[in-house]
Structures are given as structure tokens and as C-alpha cells.
């Protein structure tokens, strides 16, 4: 009982001083009662009755008094903001559910080992703690209800499966810290965690701890497969496979190609297997020369079990005609392509030119790019390709610069714009920013006090955006917020083309326009979808393999248009496949959290307020329709002669 009471408190205790107003209510009714009098025909009988009574001033309030008293006390309690604070810590469990957790650790998967370790850890925790379980791949997602008991958490853990995609644990942590309020977060991952002291302890910070797990294991994996020379005709075509060994020593591996059946399953072998020796830390390119007409293929690597604990990355698919990647043209005088970080993004081919060289490019050469990134430069005329301007100079005509501000303070942003998808805008921090004058054809997406620092719009059929903060080099997890913004920009600029050859399981493809879609995927799964201008839809690639997407638009037979394309989804993820040496995960020991209501606290005032209002409604009804006893028509005194 003591702990029960200690968990209850009033957030605004001074409001309890309203409770003595109940005494005023008593006085009001006493006054009303004593002043209440009634005129009767004659006091003849009543006077005789009164003689037999001892007149005592008793407080006999009607039912309405009790209703009003209860309502008053409930309102005072509600104003005092009672809070039920369940005891114990509020703990978030962030469980790595990325592809690497499928790797074997002995007879079981790393996820199973992690699950068992987590259960053992739970047994050592106080029983008053409450937990929320989150998984990290492909994005932060809660599993089950919020703030559950350890027993419920154990049940939820059994349902967790490792995905076939990569995750971003630092970004997931930032999201946790800003969305919900916990006392601690326990990170459970197969990667070695280095905790960095951030020096921000306090009530408004989230403590970050990692469950110590150690895994060993080597891995063989494919990181790319490409079909080349498809136009050689009878001379055949070649398939280039990029393979790796995440191991301590060179590993022997066998790489073989297979056809892909109509149902997406592995077909017959194509040619002979190739034996390769893979050196740790080096990628090996293996070429196959095939004859005949090129078609979809799947490459497979195999080796000693001890050298390959993760099998999900041992296959890679390719198909002729599938997009070879997003061709990005980087216009920068000072940033080489290799240092831009963009080549680390799967599916991107980066060509870099200086501003002077760009000016010399022909329109046809410019048009070959999927989109252009102008880094600290700007075109003199809007190019015929979607473009991104990062920190453009003053005087550019596409996005006029208003000013440059130091320590910009974010004021507003469009939360529904594609550029702010999954983006924690408040975490966008920069020492300085360029502020733009928003053109009429564009929208201000992110604003600071002085104006817009992220502007985007469409002009003449192309998309243009300007970023007033530095986005390059692309550092991925090191700067998760900026990375998300950069990827959003790239995705938006590339339009419907999306990242067609850089797709991994968990990726989604936007389906837009007035069209009917038929998507056939691996294991002969066929999905039909409808999209419209007002309600676009999307399709998520759940498994790796070859997807054939057919869209039909138009309503009349003679106006119908059918388009088909092939999309390849692979489990390419160096972060997940390079198990040895395992990439270290650097996490802060605390993360600042916004001032939110204390988690796990049940705020009770809404309930009290509703009950009080209901009681007042009853009081009003009683006033309008008072309960009266029916008087007898002829009482016992009636007699006739």
C-alpha cells in the first residue's frame, strides 16, 4: 500500500486549495435551508405538531447538495493534476533486427542468442520496471504495447524476427529520444558497441546502455552482380560478380550462376562454377562469359560453413534491362566524387565535374544524368535535369540567396513534404546556413528565423531543390539526420525512377498516377494494386529477387498504355555482411530528450473532469425535473358523516 501511495502525486498540488470551497457549499445550503419557508393555509395543526417536537437545527441537505459537493471535490482534484506514476524504470529495449542477426552463432542465430541474453538480463532487473520493445530494421518500430511487464516482454521477444535489411541504430536512438520519454534504453546488437560519454546527465536525458554481446564468425557474401554487354548478340554477354570474405584469413569459395525461373526460383546452372580465393578486406570481381540471350540470373557463393555464418547474402540477382543505377552528376570545384560519400550509396554512379567543365557539357551529356548536385556552385540557366543546389553562391538565379546566418534557429517546417519524411527536423543543426528567397514555383520546406534554408519545387517538368546547410560529404550513420535529408532529396529528385537497382528488402516503391499495377515477385507472388492521382500507393519489397512490374493506364481500349519494368532487389549491405571484423557502433551514453510528460504516468485529470461534468449534468437534470413524492389524494383523516 505504501508503494501504491508513493506512486501517486499531484502535479499541481496548490489547486487542492480549491477543496475547502466545499465549506462554502455547505454554508450556502445551510442558509438556503434555514431561509426556506412555505406559506400554508393554516398552521393550526402544524403548530400542535411542533409542540411535540424538539426543534433542532439539523443540516439535511437534498441529493443535489451531495452531487454538487462531489463535483466540486472532483474538479479540485482534477485541477491539482493527479498523476499515477507506476514505480520502476521505464526502459526501452532497442533490439537489432537487421540481417546480420540471422548469422549463425553455433547452432542458433545471433538473434536467438541475443534474445536469451536479454531474457537473462530481464531476470536481474527490478520487477517494478516497465519495458517497451523496439526493433531497428528496416526502421524503428515498436513491438507490442508500450510499457509492458517483463513477462509480456518475454512473450513479445519470441515474435521478433530478423529482417533482410540493414538498420540505423544511431538514427533509431535519436528517434526514440525525441518521440518518447524513457529512463533508459538498452541496445541489443551483434555489433561491438563503444559508448561515448556525452556529459549530459540529468532528468531530461535518456541513458544509453548496451547489452554486452560478443559474436564471432566469418562470412562470404556478394555485393554486386551486373550483366554487361547485352548488345553483343552472338558474341554472348558477361556477368560480373563482386564477392567478399569477411574473415581473418583467405577463404576458398565457389561462385556459380543460375537461371531464374518464371516463378522466381533458382533454375538450371549457367556454365561452370568458378573457384575463387577471397582475401579478407578485399573485393574480388569474378567474370562469367555466357552465350545466348541474356536473361535474369542469380549468382550464388558457397564455401566452408565455418567461413560463412550468414547465408542470406550469398545470393544476388540481376536482370537485363533493370536500371543500372542512379547516375548522379556532381558539380563541385572542391569535392571529388570519392570524398563526397555518395559512392557509398548502393545504386549510385557518381560523375564529378567542375563548374567550368559543366558549363562546357552539351545538353545531351547533361541529360544523361538522373539528377545533378551542384555543390557550392550553381548553373547559370536551369538545366534540363532535376537538380540539387547545396550552399549555392549569392547571385544564383535559380534560388536567390537572401543572407547567410550564424547559428540558425529552426522555426517551422512542412512535416508532410517528401523531403521531411522520417526526418527529425529539430535535430538539423548547423553552425551556419544560407537563407533563400523562395521562388514563386517553389515551397519553403524548412525555415529558420530569417527565412527558408531548404526550398524545393518543380519548374518546366523538373524538380529543383536548394539546401542552405552542408550535406556533403555524405557520412551515413555518423550524421544520421543529415543523411536522411540527403537521401530524401536524392529520392525526390530522382522522381518515379526511385532507387531501382539499389533496393533492398524493406524498401518501398511509390506507385503514382491513374494506373493499375501487377507485381510478380519471388516465389511466384503476384500482387495487383490500383493507384490514382489523389491516392498514390506503394509496394514494399519483402524478399530479395526479381520483380516484374507492369502498369496499365488509360480507361479506353484505344487509349490504354502498358509499361513493364524489371526491378532487382538484393541484400547488398556491407554494414550487415562484413561480420569480421565487426564494425563498431559508437553510441552516446546519454541523449537529450525534450521535456515530455513523465512516461508511464497515468494522467488522471481527464477522467476526474469527465466524472465531475457528468455529475453536474445530473444536478442540472435534477433541478429541471425534481423528484417529487406523490401526495395521497385522501389520507387517513378523511371521513364523512
Amino acid at each position, binding site marked *: 500500500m505504501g508503494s501504491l501511495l508513493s506512486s501517486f502525486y499531484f502535479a499541481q498540488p496548490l489547486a487542492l486549495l480549491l477543496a475547502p470551497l466545499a465549506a462554502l457549499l455547505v454554508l450556502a445550503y445551510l442558509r438556503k*435551508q*434555514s431561509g*426556506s*419557508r*412555505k*406559506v*400554508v*393555509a*393554516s*398552521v*393550526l*395543526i*402544524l*403548530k*400542535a*405538531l*411542533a409542540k*411535540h*417536537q*424538539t*426543534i*433542532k437545527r*439539523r443540516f439535511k441537505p437534498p441529493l443535489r447538495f451531495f452531487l454538487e459537493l462531489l463535483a466540486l471535490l472532483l474538479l479540485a482534484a482534477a485541477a491539482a493534476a493527479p498523476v499515477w506514476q507506476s514505480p520502476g524504470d521505464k526502459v526501452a529495449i532497442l533490439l537489432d533486427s537487421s540481417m546480420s542477426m540471422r548469422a549463425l552463432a553455433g547452432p542458433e542465430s545471433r538473434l536467438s542468442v541475443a534474445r536469451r541474453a536479454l531474457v537473462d538480463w530481464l531476470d536481474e532487473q527490478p520487477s517494478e520496471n516497465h519495458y517497451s520493445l523496439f526493433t531497428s530494421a528496416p526502421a524503428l518500430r515498436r513491438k507490442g504495447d508500450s510499457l509492458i511487464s517483463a513477462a509480456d516482454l518475454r512473450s513479445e521477444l519470441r515474435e521478433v524476427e530478423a529482417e533482410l535489411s540493414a538498420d540505423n541504430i544511431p538514427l533509431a536512438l535519436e528517434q526514440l529520444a525525441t518521440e518518447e520519454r524513457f529512463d533508459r534504453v538498452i541496445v541489443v546488437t551483434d555489433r561491438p558497441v563503444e559508448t561515448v560519454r556525452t556529459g549530459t546527465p540529468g532528468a531530461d536525458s535518456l541513458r544509453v546502455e548496451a547489452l554486452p554481446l560478443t559474436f564471432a564468425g566469418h562470412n562470404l557474401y556478394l555485393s554486386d552482380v551486373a550483366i554487361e554487354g547485352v548488345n553483343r548478340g552472338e558474341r554472348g554477354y558477361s556477368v560480373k560478380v563482386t564477392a567478399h570474405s569477411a574473415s581473418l584469413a583467405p577463404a576458398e569459395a565457389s561462385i556459380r550462376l543460375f537461371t531464374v525461373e518464371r516463378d522466381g526460383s533458382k533454375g538450371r546452372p549457367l556454365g561452370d562454377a568458378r573457384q575463387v580465393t577471397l582475401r579478407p578486406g578485399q573485393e574480388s570481381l569474378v567474370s562469367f562469359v555466357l552465350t545466348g540471350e541474356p536473361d535474369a540470373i542469380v549468382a550464388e557463393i558457397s564455401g566452408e560453413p565455418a567461413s560463412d555464418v550468414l547465408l542470406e547474402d550469398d545470393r544476388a540477382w540481376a536482370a537485363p534491362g533493370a536500371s543500372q543505377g542512379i547516375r548522379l552528376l556532381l558539380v563541385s570545384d572542391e569535392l571529388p566524387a570519392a570524398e563526397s560519400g555518395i559512392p557509398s550509396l548502393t545504386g549510385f554512379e557518381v560523375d564529378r565535374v567542375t563548374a567550368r567543365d559543366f558549363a562546357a557539357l552539351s545538353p545531351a551529356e547533361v541529360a544523361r544524368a538522373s539528377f545533378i548536385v551542384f555543390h557550392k556552385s550553381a548553373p547559370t540557366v536551369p538545366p534540363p535535369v532535376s537538380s540539387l543546389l547545396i550552399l549555392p553562391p549569392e547571385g544564383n538565379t535559380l534560388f536567390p540567396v537572401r543572407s547567410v546566418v550564424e547559428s540558425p534557429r529552426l522555426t517551422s517546417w512542412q512535416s508532410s513534404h517528401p523531403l521531411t519524411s522520417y526526418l527529425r527536423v529539430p535535430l538539423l543543426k548547423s553552425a551556419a546556413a544560407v537563407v533563400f528567397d523562395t521562388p514563386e514555383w517553389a515551397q519553403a520546406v524548412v525555415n529558420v528565423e530569417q527565412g527558408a534554408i531548404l526550398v524545393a519545387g518543380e519548374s518546366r517538368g523538373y524538380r529543383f531543390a536548394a539546401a542552405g546547410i552542408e550535406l556533403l560529404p555524405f557520412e551515413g550513420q555518423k550524421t544520421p539526420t543529415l543523411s536522411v535529408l540527403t537521401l530524401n532529396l536524392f529520392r525526390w529528385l530522382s522522381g518515379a525512377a526511385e532507387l531501382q537497382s539499389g533496393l533492398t528488402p524493406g524498401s518501398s516503391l511509390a506507385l503514382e498516377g491513374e494506373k493499375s499495377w501487377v507485381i510478380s515477385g519471388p516465389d511466384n507472388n503476384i500482387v495487383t494494386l490500383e493507384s490514382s492521382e489523389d491516392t498514390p500507393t506503394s509496394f514494399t519489397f519483402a524478399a530479395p529477387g526479381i520483380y516484374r512490374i507492369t502498369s496499365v493506364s488509360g480507361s479506353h481500349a484505344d487509349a490504354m498504355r502498358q509499361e513493364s519494368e524489371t526491378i532487382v532487389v538484393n541484400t547488398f549491405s556491407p554494414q550487415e555482411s562484413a561480420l569480421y571484423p565487426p564494425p563498431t557502433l559508437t553510441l552516446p551514453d546519454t541523449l537529450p530528450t525534450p521535456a515530455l510528460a513523465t512516461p508511464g504516468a497515468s494522467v488522471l485529470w481527464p477522467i476526474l473532469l469527465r466524472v465531475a461534468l457528468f455529475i453536474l449534468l445530473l444536478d442540472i437534470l435534477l433541478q429541471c425535473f425534481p423528484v*417529487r*413524492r406523490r*401526495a*395521497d*389524494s*385522501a*389520507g*387517513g*383523516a*378523511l*371521513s*364523512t*358523516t
Partner: protein
Amino acid sequence: MAEPLFAPQFFRKLQQLKIHTRKAYLGSRQGIHRSLRRGHGLEFADYRVYTPGDDFRHIDWGAYARTDRLYVRQFREEQDLNVIVILDASASMAYPEGSGKFVTARDLALALGYVAMSDGDSVMFSILGRENTPRFRGARALSRAVKALASVEPEGSFNFVEEVRAALARQKIPGRCFLISDFMMPVEQTIAALDLLRGRNFDVSIIQVLAPEELRLDTANTPPVVVDAETNETVELALSRASVQEYAALLAAHIAALERYCAKSGISHVLVSSAEPVQDIVLTKFPAVGLLK
């Protein structure tokens, strides 16, 4: 009154009733009631010795055969009845508010008046605290009677005995008297007023009209302080469940005292509730207790 006072069927039934009186009175006109005057009516009253000039058709030959002496029969003259309806219109008749006590009393007065008028009797309404109405005769006079009573509102307080005395002051001829009130006053006052009426040889009936709230104490709707409508006297109460029974006993004792005096004095006493329909009272209760026949 905006609506017809009584339904046509009630009027027809009232026409079939007659004011019942236990005494014979001298009327002013020929009516249907026995009078003290001996004359040419239909009812044999007495014999007297024949004197020259008497109508020989009235000689009782049987008496002559028995006595060898000539006697003539004497008959009672049937004459009209002098009816007075005294209606209490003091403030107490207006309470409890909305109980309709005075309306019931007034309607009973009019019903009795109509019975008398339709029988050829004359009726005068005496409103205590106000002027007496003129005498009304004949059924067609009802509308004038209604008009006379329509504007009366119960108000004010007065000495009950003195007002009854004043009402009788202009009454030369006794007759039938109906006194309608709640009689929620000391019994002695009522007795004093009834004595006045008996002293003037009226055949008196009292009709006590009480509201249901007066017949049975409603503790829920009775506040701790009550005020007398006429005297403004205040009484503090501490009501309980037992108070209902105590009140009933006290009221019964008060009514019983009144009934004892009435029984001893040959006065009819009728207790009615304002919740009872006037038609039921007049057509059922009054004949049952002998006020009407």
C-alpha cells in the same frame, strides 16, 4: 371562467336533484317545499271546526259520520325554499398553491345553487369578506350566479364569526344554509359561527374542503419553517417519518371535534378533498349524506 363550468350531462343530473331539508320553512312564493303556511296545497295538515264560509268541498264527511259534527280539512301550502350558500374566500382557501381548493369550494357552491335554482328555489351566495350576491331564481339565473362568483379570489383574513353574522344580517327568512370552508381554525370559532346559524333557525350543512397536502403531511415538500397565510404566524418544524402519523392524528382529532358538535346539533358535516371531482362529490357524496335527494 373560460370553459363551461359543468358538462351538459352534469346539468341534467343536477336538475334531477333536490335540496334536502329537514325542516319546513315559510317561503315567499309557491314552490315545492313544505311550508309552515296552511293553505291550499296538496298535503293534509289538520282539521278545524266548520264555520260558515268555508269551502264545503273540504268537509270531512267521515269525521261527521263519526262525530256528528262538521269539520273541514286543512292543507299545507307548498312554497319555495330560501337557500343561502356561504363561501369562505379568505386567504387560507388559496393554499396550498395550485391545489385548487377554492375552485372546488366555489364549484360546489354553484352546483348546490343550481340544484336549488332549477327547483324553483331562490339562492343567495354569501362570500365571506365580500358582499352578498342578489337572490337568484330559476335555472336560467345560473349564468348570472357564475358571473358573480367568477371574479372572486380568495384573499385577506377576517373574523369568521363576524363575517357569518354579517352575512345573516340581511336574511329575514331562514332556510337552508350550506357553509363551505376549510374550517382550519379553532373549533370554537366554527362552533360560534354555526351557533349563529342555528339560532336563526337555518337547516345547516357544513362542507369542509381540504387539499390532499393538508389531509396528509408531505414531509419532503414541507420546509423547516411554515407561515400561516392569514395570520402570518410562523412555526418551526423538525419533521421526521413519525411526523406523518402525528399530523394525521392531530387532524383527525380536529375533524372529530367538529363532527361531534355537528352530530349533536343536527348539522350535516361533509369532508371532501379538492382532488376529488366535483361531479362525484355532488352526485354521489352529497346524496349519500342527505344534503341532496
